[in-house]
């Protein structure tokens, strides 16, 4: 993989990361991002 292809691939990964961060900010629901996993992160998966 030459330097120019590497640059294109790297920029594509960066673009993907930006899209992922923006998407996450939009779909952030209550409690998302919590570290403890006790109240919100383990909310029932089979429920509404």
């Amino acid at each position, binding site marked *: *993989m*030459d*330097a120019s*292809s*590497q*640059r294109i*691939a*790297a*920029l594509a*990964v*960066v673009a993907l*990361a*930006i899209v*992922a*961060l923006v998407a*996450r900010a939009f779909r*952030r629901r*209550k*409690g*998302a*991002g*919590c*570290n*403890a*996993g*006790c*109240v*919100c*992160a*383990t*909310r*029932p*998966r*089979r*429920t*509404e």
Partner: protein
Amino acid sequence: MGSDASQPNTGGDPRASLPAHFSGNSPVRRRPSAAPRAPVYAMVGNPNCGKTTLFNALTGLRQKVGNYPGVTVEKKMGEAYSQHGKPMWVIDLPGAYSLAARSPDEAVTRDVLLGRRTDTPQPDRIICVLDATNLERNLYLAHQILDLGRPVIVVLNMMDLARRAGVAIDAAKLEEQLGVPVITCEAVHNRGVVELRIAMSRAELPLARHRWDVPAPIAPAVAELQAGLVDEGRPPLVARAEALLLLTDFDTVRVAGSTPLGNRTASVLEAWRRRWSAEGTDWSAALIKSRYEAINVLCQGVVDRPAPKGLSLSDRIDALLVHSVWGWVVFGVIMAAMFLSIFTLAEYPMGLIEGLVADGAGLIKETMPPGDLRDLLTEGVIGGAGGVVVFLPQILILFLFVGLLESTGYMARAAFLMDRPMSRVGLHGRSFIPLLGSYACAIPGIMATRTIENAKDRLATILVAPLMSCSARLPVYLLMIATLLPGREVPAMTKAGLMLLMYALGTGGAFGFAWLFKRTFLRGDNPLMILELPPYQPPRLKEILRQMLERGWLFLRNAGTIILAISIVLWFLTTYPKHPDPQATADTQIAHSFAGQAGHILEPVIKPLGFDWRIGIGLITSFAAREVFVSSMGVIFGVESADEDTAPIREAMLKATWPDGAPLFTPLVCLTLMIYYVFAMQCMSTIAVVRRETHSWRWPLFQVAYMTGTAWLVCLLFYQAGRALGF
């Protein structure tokens, strides 16, 4: 028994369909559907009687459980299956001592049962879980539930503990007296769950037979209020139960989603209250007393409690653990052991992960030709997200200790112990559990404040909870301690002491600000704390291990998602635009980059604290989550030392200098940085949760301003004082 509960009796409820999210039907559709719908069960009981353990056993879900009151503060729904494989919905409600709610979590329970919630279907049937060791007190809530006129299943949980305490309960007689099924159960050992499932599968459940006469002076008021509520659309028995609640004077706690009281009912209530006040009738006490009298009659011949034979084992342990002096000694030893373990036990696995991360980066460097993608992988992905993963063992150890404390029942003792110092700063002892929970993460801590009855106390607790050092700060502290004390010969005790100091500083800060708030804009009375001390139980290792792994997985998931994405973006910002001179040094390149330019704009604000623009970048990116600071340092210093062999972040950081060649990460700067993270509000998720819990942007913005302002000021004083003293 035997036929399936596909068409449950609903106690006369005209509602025939569930909201859309339950059944796919419109919430306003009343026409009976041809397809049978799943019955909805509500699980209620006193705090810490084992509701969530039973809920998990029925639904196969894994909601958090703990041996202290107030673990569940929000309703949770899960799907269970009957004996014949038919679906049933179970709602796990927060614990309540009475339907007359005194705190927001109890109000959720009351409103769901009374059908006041617009977002939750009124339950068809109720599972009333009672703590068999404390039957008389638990029956107070059960008595109110039976008044609702809905099919009820009574579960006598913790029968093993009751037997051990010598309490004999005649479940058959209780069933006969109440007229509803009574199931004996030990939810922790999965005993009685099948019997409960069979009872839940019954097509018909008998309605309660119990009789309770409302005291004569109150009866006309109950009748009038009941008539008004029936006119507002309540079923007659629910209206009667609600009328009784309105008269106990505690029906004032309202939460979002509750339907308000009608004008007519409110005016009738007010008129009766005025009349009784003029007559000197204590209507509230009369109702409570008459209910307890009915319970005493009910318990005759049902409960056989042995005469007390001195102190129980829990009482004997409590004599030490809640002792005014020894209690504190034990508390200190437990905390010290926790932090010491974080450094000693984690050393080997941490070194192993560090080695794996370094090997991964080395492998990529060997196999890929130089270029941007290779740099992105080694500096952005491995240097950033990999640098955070290294701290997984410490996170697991922290949660192992938290799990042990929660599971054994020590948490409630610690809250009791803390009541005295907390009342001195104006905080309610009940605030301690939310504050202690904030050591894991401020978000569940803030949600746990729903158990606090007084609105001002609750707000004060919410405002100071993020000052307690959460697990996200742990990687920052660990990195700074490793940079501050780089040698392996430094005793673990010194490192643990430093860590303990940071936790103490956060706790002291929380108490100090609570004192300030409670003496200024949140001034109010200091109510007495009444907290149930649950009996000690052996730790449930399986449960602790499950919670530990779940939290470890969340940590890894965070590292693999948000932290990874931010690291990649930060790598881009530190790499582009490229310096026009291809031979430029890494220092010059990063200073020329987008991040370098932004960092230089910020530098004048943070330079008085001893921080340069590279640390500034870390401070900004870690607003997303505090651990991002570690990955940011990994990316920035990884980019700087790109030409060298891959080394742990701390070694790259130790080589960082100011433009004049002076070292950047001096011990004083490392300590200042740790203090900054103790006080600064660096967590967007917490801001969002505070907004949700306070229903306003005012408080989260105030929190950001006061916490970050304090962090800056304290760091300025500390750093400048340190410099003046020659450090």
